[in-house]
């Protein structure tokens, strides 16, 4: 695949206010602006806004899972009714964990290939990462299927409700990330590169790694206090 898709760093308009009255007191506001991407109207939005945006956007996801996890811990701690039945964790959960973590590793390898401008390497690793991610989703469906076969249903015990709720909520977030991974896959032949970095590649992998983090957090939650 030709590397001609790599674009040079877009030429910025001359730094605004340079040499003008502002140069005497430059603020952080004007510093460190990268190349500009198109916003909603094609108005200028600094590139780093997207990086800030994804990090800020992960905060509510973290809060959602933190709230659900706290509810889980609180409910687990209510012992006087003795009605909490620990869910038998299916063995598949370890396979899935491995799939998800290795998909993240593959995406990271893809990102590094991109940095070295090795586009074929990028494409290969990205596809591997995406497929591993799909494997995780399929594995999660497998877990729900197994549990159902064992007669573990959504509403029959608080621990079961929480397990289904947390894993389904996580899987929905993973599917959202999957859309982004597939989008990058589809557009991998036509990427805008700036300093060996591509915005959508960076953003979707940050999100994906965060899904790993949430998953490991949930796994720990299911394991402790049993």
């Amino acid at each position: 695949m030709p590397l001609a898709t790599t674009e040079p760093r877009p030429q910025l308009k001359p730094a605004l206010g340079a040499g003008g009255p502002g140069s005497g007191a430059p603020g952080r506001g004007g510093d460190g602006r990268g190349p500009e991407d198109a916003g909603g109207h094609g108005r200028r939005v600094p590139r780093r806004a997207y990086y800030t945006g994804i990090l800020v956007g992960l905060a509510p996801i973290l809060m959602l899972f933190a709230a659900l996890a706290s509810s889980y811990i609180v409910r687990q701690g209510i012992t006087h009714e003795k009605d909490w039945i620990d869910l038998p964790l299916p063995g598949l959960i370890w396979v899935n964990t491995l799939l998800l973590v290795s998909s993240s590793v593959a995406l990271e390898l893809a990102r590094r290939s991109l940095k070295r401008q090795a586009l074929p390497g990028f494409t290969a690793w990205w596809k591997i990462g995406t497929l591993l991610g799909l494997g995780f989703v399929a594995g999660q469906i497998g877990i729900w299927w197994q549990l159902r076969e064992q007669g573990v249903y959504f509403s029959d015990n608080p621990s079961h409700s929480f397990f289904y709720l947390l894993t389904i909520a996580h899987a929905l977030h993973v599917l959202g990330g999957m859309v982004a991974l597939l989008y990058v896959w589809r557009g991998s032949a036509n990427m805008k590169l700036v300093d060996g970095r591509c915005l959508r590649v960076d953003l979707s992998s940050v999100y994906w790694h965060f899904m790993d983090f949430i998953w490991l957090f949930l796994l720990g939650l299911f394991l402790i206090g049993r």
Partner: protein
Amino acid sequence: MSVAHEVDEEHEVHVHQEPTQFIWKYVFSTDHKVIGKQYYMLAVVAVVIGLTLSLMFRWHLATYDPQHMFLSPDTYLQVLTMHGTILVFMVLTTAPLGGFGNYFLPIQIGAVDMAFPRLNMLSFWLTLLSFITLLAAFFVPGGAPVSGWTGYPPLSAINSTTEGMGWGQTLWVGSIAIFCLASLVGAINFIVTTLDLRARGMTLLRMPLPCWAWFVTAVLALLSFAVLFAGGLLLILDRHLGTSFYIPAGVIFGAKELNHKGGSPLLYQHLFWFFGHPEVYIAILPGMGIVSHILATFSRKPIFGYKAMVYAIIAIGGIGFFVWGHHMFQSGMSPYVAVAFSLLTMTIGVPSAIKTFNWLGTLWMGNITCNSAMLFALGFVSLFVSGGISGIFLGQNAVDIYFHDTYFVVAHFHLIMGVAAMFSIAAGTYFWFPKMYGRFMNESLGKVHFWLTFVGVYSVFIPMHLMGLWGHPRRYSGMENAFLSNPFIPAMHNMVTAAAFVAVLAQLIFICNFFYSMFKGPVAPENPWNCTSLEWITTSPPKFDNFGGVEPVVNHDPYEYSVPGASKDYIMQTDPPEAAPAHAVGHD
């Protein structure tokens, strides 16, 4: 002063064309100014509905007669629930942040738009969808829910308890969930815009105080709405999928025991109030920012202790996350936990007092102009103090045990959260109307509006404190026993209702003034108030790209009024550095 001349030397910014078709320009617009106005108008519609509902239950209470009730007990609770929900979510959360924040944050920091305009549009349309969903609860079988704006389970978690707890409650939860998503999307935009889109020279500590307030408010929204969403999610699952997150074992309804076990209704309270207390600051912090801005402008003085104001906003927002338990003193929590929550609640008094002191310090020896905007800003300070004082009482767990669920609490939170925030919205409207619509609002009508509202709301809520002290419970549609035991209570209800009608009807003056002035008001210049911040260097109303294709460069702090030795009594943030004599710079 004219911006055109000042910025000619600066370099042009490439800006794409403004949409020309009506639907893209005014309906599905990605322009932050249009979205700000859309939010504001949504809040106006919501406030009319919400206040009408309040008049309905005030009328019920004033004319209370067990034989001929104006509202049935169920209807009373439905009206009460919707009044609270509409005003808290669709007015107090939308107008100060979504309305003014959207319109003025980008302009005040010198940006051409929000960071993510399409997300911004999504945020508004989700809010509208949420509002429509909420209103739809009136029109489904059974009508609106009766569980109050807090929607506590087990009442809210069981479908079939009473009128409105079926579809009405489901729509209510759905509406809140959509609102959470809208607020989260909006909050991301506010935070990124503030961090990454500031104009050259606009350091964080040069931002006008409203920008700080919107920023901290957005952080609160970002962290708290996700928790409310989680709470709502569990509620919906309990209602419709048979789970038992909130419904304990042994709930007997009708003649049969419900098939739930193991849930904890308290869990909902924790999740709800972890959102609910920051929500109070989501409503009031933007007001604090707006009021600080207006007080400095019309006192012709720098804001007293700018940095202290910034740190106080951050402190209020930060501590606000650790006090939710003070809404739950009655829940049977350990007294040790209650004391911890109580102490943390008292701590919020410190930054609040710093703010109040600094507002008074700003006014002190100022050259004060008492126009409508300033009157409402002063009214805000007054309400913040009188509403805040009773918060000190309620924050003590021992005292709250007595006051909980009485009119004392109703009086407290209406003064500080409801009415104070409303005053800041009114102040912001009179102040920014010339910028938003290029015309002035009528000053005389503004002053009539202020005095009727100011006297009206105090006449509504001061007596309620007294009724609360007498033990008058809130949320009761009829209370024959209370009427019999205290002959003053019916008289009080009459007085409160009369005052409520005055205060609410006075808003009609405001609304008429607003829409009349939009078309017929005197034309406003660029900077009618001789204010220093960036929105006043551009045209009224601002062009599509805010600054006419040039990016402003900021050289000054936001509140350089009456700088000794300067040629005029205010220095625009974009004035050249030499506009302020060297010895005077940094005098704040």
